[in-house]
């Protein structure tokens, strides 16, 4: 797997092409893109600031990748997570899974997102248009979603 943490935006088409360009053994590609919404439960959001723990991110993602590969016959997996200050409407995270058949691609992508949400060391702070900052609280629903894979 490739895991990248970067401030710059990602280009889904270019990333997909890098994984599958010219290959004839791929039947299914799933991409997930997470974006900054302009409000969170009615509270307006101007920017989202993402902080992370770089050394642990890498270690944790390697573990998550090994888990995904042991469960599903995926050919390629890519995770790109942005950090720093992002504006409403911008991309946050990209997951791409590539497999011969669709179910493995769908399941692995869902699994990676659930694990990213509950295990990867990233934290989001929302800043309202008036400058007030609020750390995003974890959703109990994310833990429940991740539990599905146990």
């Amino acid at each position, binding site marked *: 797997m490739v895991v990248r943490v970067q401030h710059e935006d990602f280009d889904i088409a270019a990333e997909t092409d890098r994984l599958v360009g010219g290959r004839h053994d791929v039947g299914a590609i799933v991409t997930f893109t997470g974006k900054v919404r302009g409000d969170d439960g009615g509270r307006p959001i101007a920017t989202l600031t993402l*902080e*992370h723990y770089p*050394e*642990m991110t890498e*270690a944790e993602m390697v573990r998550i990748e090994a888990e995904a590969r042991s469960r599903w016959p995926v050919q390629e997996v890519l995770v790109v997570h942005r950090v720093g200050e992002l504006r409403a409407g911008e991309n946050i*995270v990209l997951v791409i899974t590539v497999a011969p058949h669709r179910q493995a691609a769908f399941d692995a992508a869902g699994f990676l997102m659930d694990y990213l949400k509950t*295990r*990867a060391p990233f934290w989001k702070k929302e800043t309202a248009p008036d400058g007030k900052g609020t*750390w995003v609280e974890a959703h109990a629903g994310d833990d429940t979603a991740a539990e599905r894979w146990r």
Partner: protein
Amino acid sequence: MSTDATRRVRLLYFAWVREKVGVSTEEVDLPQTVASVEALVEWLKQRGPQYGEAFARPQVVRAALDRVHVKPTAALGSVREVAFFPPVTGG
């Protein structure tokens, strides 16, 4: 306290835990008697009010030992890096 009764550990803080503690990282010499994550939290709280604030609700602060998620009861062992942070909110 003799030197061989302590070990040097690197502490890292993230998100609002970092904001409350006031630093993102520090090196501390831990007594050997501080043997678990929860014992380390208690030891830190005696160092200053900022730790008391950061760990006011210890159940919502998570920890990692050498970059692996652990429970509060986990033994520190020969750990070199301990991180404290709120539940993660990436993705």
